[in-house]
């Protein structure tokens, strides 16, 4: 139904936004979102300029962040490509916090503002609140406060110990940022009050623990029963930054705190890296559904819809692999297609759908989608819900590239025999555990040179990249002693190793 001019709630047909109109549009979107049962944090919409958007990019969207040259580098890149017109800025940035902060750029038209509100303030927001990973790993109430704490603490360290010392340490921490995450353990929630209150206590405690571990004068009774040294750590540790924070012998208390800060931030962003397809798909699905609903009610008109659809179709376009614009699978396209497809399976299942998805075919789509949003991450979501119909529509095909054979092999395509295989492969492709090399703390030589051994367990015989040696230098800087990185094949045989030696007791 086109816009009904008699409807008192109809939005005017204009592209300029005003604060009143944004309030009005937001009110309508909120009403429709409630109708569909979207549960969100309260929203805080902030109008910002393009420059401010670039600033927000730089600090990964956080409203505050500590200072570091790498953010400056990021800013320069963004600024350059934006000024040259090579790239438009994102229409929105949304922060997983409570209240949920969404940035609206002042350049956007009224239509785009409405799109952004539906997408970010209701789509992403409800995802942040509902998805199990975010519920487990992040604390939306505390993150902004924690960032303020981190910024102040690091600024204080810079004053006390010099910018260079802090910068060096942060460089090293950043190099290991992807290895500052507990993948399997449930994290303890972070709260700013506790952080500040317990920080001192923790410093002293940790230092004492370290001293215990590295004590050079053994107690007398230990001397008596001189047994083989206990293996340390008893189990391999996947969280390298955590291990360094707890056990690196030479770090000073403030340095441990910095390691901890980078680790916590990394942990906070970890769910976002695991739910790209779902998160964007969910938000895109909802902005599409909500705005269509507003159109049906006659609140927005044809002009609005045309502008919106043009932008929407750009976002969900998936170039084929043969296209020069192809750069991997577009998470918006795949996510949106899958969400829409689940709705279709619920509402209008074919025989094929009934065979593949007996549980959800014909069920209430709102409940089914909500369940899917809450309980999956990209990998499991695709493994669970990618339908043969979508595989056909995307013309998915799997290519096997084995460096032992001269040619690439097409291992499966979008046919009856290939559906499950393609689906499994695609799901694996989103498994962070496969995408990043599996590197864990293996052993510390507590009795002799204190050397740290890391183990890279090979996946599919994939080698490490050439930066590995550079990263190892960073590890050595944090650890303070020699560091070795062994690459082992799945059977545990050491295939190759890298080493970074440090001068004994060399401090930086």
């Amino acid at each position, binding site marked *: 139904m086109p816009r009904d001019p008699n409807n008192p709630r109809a939005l005017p047909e204009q592209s300029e936004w005003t604060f009143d109109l944004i309030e009005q549009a937001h009110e309508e979107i909120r009403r429709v979102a409630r109708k569909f049962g979207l549960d969100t944090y309260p929203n805080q*919409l902030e109008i910002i300029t393009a420059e401010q958007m670039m600033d927000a990019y730089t600090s990964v969207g956080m409203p505050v962040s500590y200072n570091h040259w790498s953010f*400056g580098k990021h800013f320069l890149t963004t600024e350059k490509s934006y000024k040259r017109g090579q790239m438009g800025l994102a229409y929105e940035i949304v922060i997983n916090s409570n209240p949920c902060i969404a940035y609206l750029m002042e350049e956007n038209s009224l239509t785009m503002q409405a799109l952004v509100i539906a997408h970010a303030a209701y789509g992403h927001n409800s995802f942040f609140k509902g998805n199990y990973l975010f519920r487990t790993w992040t604390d939306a109430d505390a993150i902004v406060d924690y960032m303020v704490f981190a910024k102040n603490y690091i600024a204080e360290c810079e004053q006390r110990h010099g910018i260079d010392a802090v910068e060096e340490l942060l460089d090293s921490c950043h190099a290991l940022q992807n290895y500052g995450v507990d993948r399997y353990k449930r994290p303890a929630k972070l709260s700013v009050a506790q952080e500040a209150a317990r920080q001192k206590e923790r410093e002293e405690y940790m230092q004492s623990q370290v001293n215990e571990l590295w004590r050079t004068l053994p107690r007398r009774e230990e001397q008596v029963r001189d047994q083989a040294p206990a293996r340390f750590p008893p189990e391999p540790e996947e969280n390298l930054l955590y291990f360094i924070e707890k056990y690196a012998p030479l770090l000073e208390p403030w340095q441990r705190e910095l390691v901890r800060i980078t680790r916590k931030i990394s942990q906070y962003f970890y769910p976002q890296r695991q739910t790209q397809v779902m998160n964007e798909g969910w938000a895109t699905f909802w902005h599409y559904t909500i705005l269509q609903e507003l159109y049906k009610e006659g609140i927005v008109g044809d002009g609005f819809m045309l502008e919106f659809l043009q932008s929407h179709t750009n976002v969900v376009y998936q170039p084929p692999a043969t296209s020069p614009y192809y750069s991997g699978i577009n998470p918006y396209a795949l996510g949106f297609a899958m969400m829409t497809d689940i709705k279709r399976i619920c509402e209008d299942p074919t025989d094929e759908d009934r065979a593949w998805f007996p549980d959800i075919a014909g069920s209430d789509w709102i409940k089914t989608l909500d369940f899917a949003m809450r309980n999956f991450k990209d990998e499991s979501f695709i493994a669970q819900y990618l339908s043969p119909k979508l595989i056909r529509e995307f*013309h998915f095909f799997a290519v096997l590239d084995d460096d032992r054979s001269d040619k690439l092999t097409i291992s499966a395509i979008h046919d009856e025999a290939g559906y499950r295989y393609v689906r499994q492969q695609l799901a694996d492709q989103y498994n962070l555990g496969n995408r990043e090399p599996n590197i864990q703390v293996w052993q510390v030589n507590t009795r002799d040179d204190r050397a740290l051994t890391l183990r890279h367990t090979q996946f599919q015989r*994939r080698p490490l990249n050439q930066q590995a040696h550079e990263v190892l230098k960073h590890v050595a800087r944090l650890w303070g002693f020699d560091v070795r990185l062994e690459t082992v094949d799945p059977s545990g045989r050491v295939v190759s190793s890298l080493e970074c030696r440090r001068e004994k007791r060399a401090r930086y």
Partner: protein
Amino acid sequence: MTYLIDRRLQGKNKSAVNRERFLRRYKAQIKDAVGRAIKGRSITDVENGEKVSIPVKDVNEPRFGHAHGGVWETVNPGNTEYQKGDQINRPRGGGGGAGRGRAGNSEQTTEDDFIFELSREEFMNYFFEDLELPNMVKTQLTQVVEYKNQRAGYNISGTPSNIHVLRSLRGALGRRIAVGGPSRKQLTALEHQLRDLREQGAEDDDPLVIELKHKIHHLHTRLLAIPFIDPIDLRYSNRIKIPKPSTAAVMFCVMDVSGSMDESRKDTAKRFFILLYLFLKRVYERIDVVFIRHHTAAAEVDENEFFHSRESGGTVVSSALHLLNKVISERYSNGDWNSYVAQASDGDNWDNDSVLCKQLLTSAIMPKVQYYTYVEITDGPPQNLWEQYAEVAATHQNFAMQKIVTPADIYPVFRELFKKQPK
């Protein structure tokens, strides 16, 4: 509960600190890049901001990752022709062929330099830093010191000496017309009435006539009471100070291009010329730059040829001075031009030519130029040209000479120059 907050007025330069941190960290590389940029650009163009590129491997933040190798199985969209089991060749290089789904993991992708822009101030800071200019001089160079008075319309207040008579009187006239308008209209009407009465044969003592005459008289008095000129009519010429240097200068770049001047010497010379140019640009509105190069013969050339063509052979410095003198007298002899000469050489000259140079300078050139700077880019012992020039320097205040080895030595040449322009 929803909040809609307008953050647009809040500071936008949140990233300034991070940007500055970046520049701080890559100072050495940026300085190199600025050096390269100066080599590559024209003297007159040196002041703009600059795109600076530093090798991407330097700014790289290393992370653990997979390199290509082992087994990669990827799922891609858009199959058109393949069937299961098809064998295809590996795509070459980083081209986006079918089956290449490893973007981001492949290390074969060529990476460009990391390019970003420096603002003009930042660029100049790096440039000056290299030259080791003391801060005092930097402010002089980056500040405009001279003002020029310029007319800027009219004002309603000012000093009596600035009263603009024409404008004031024109205003007065307008005011008189405007203020007297109604009375004058009435007056004409009354005079008409009176004439009509008279034509009808009214006598002078007719009460109507007397009343009319009375009224007319009253209006005349009123019109006369309108002042010829009133304080509100006064207009003053308005003059504002605009920060513009007032006159024109010509800068002569004279350089020895004989075989012994190699690229690095030319580069040093170029920095020397740039510095003089920058200084002049602060002070003068218009600057002509004349490039004269010489070996045994001198020629006036364009900038590109000046710096980039190579010559060989001996050196006769006086040939350049002859040409210099000729150009000054032909083109820049009237009083509007301030002439500055910057000469760079490696000090070689024909033996008996140096005396000739000295004569030329003292008799013809020095009286015509504002300042003459000479740099000898060499680390060897002084030769006869240096000795002859030293004699010139002893007798002329506005002659500076310096022997330099690196760009850092250039500054002392200008010290005198800056001292002589107190402001």
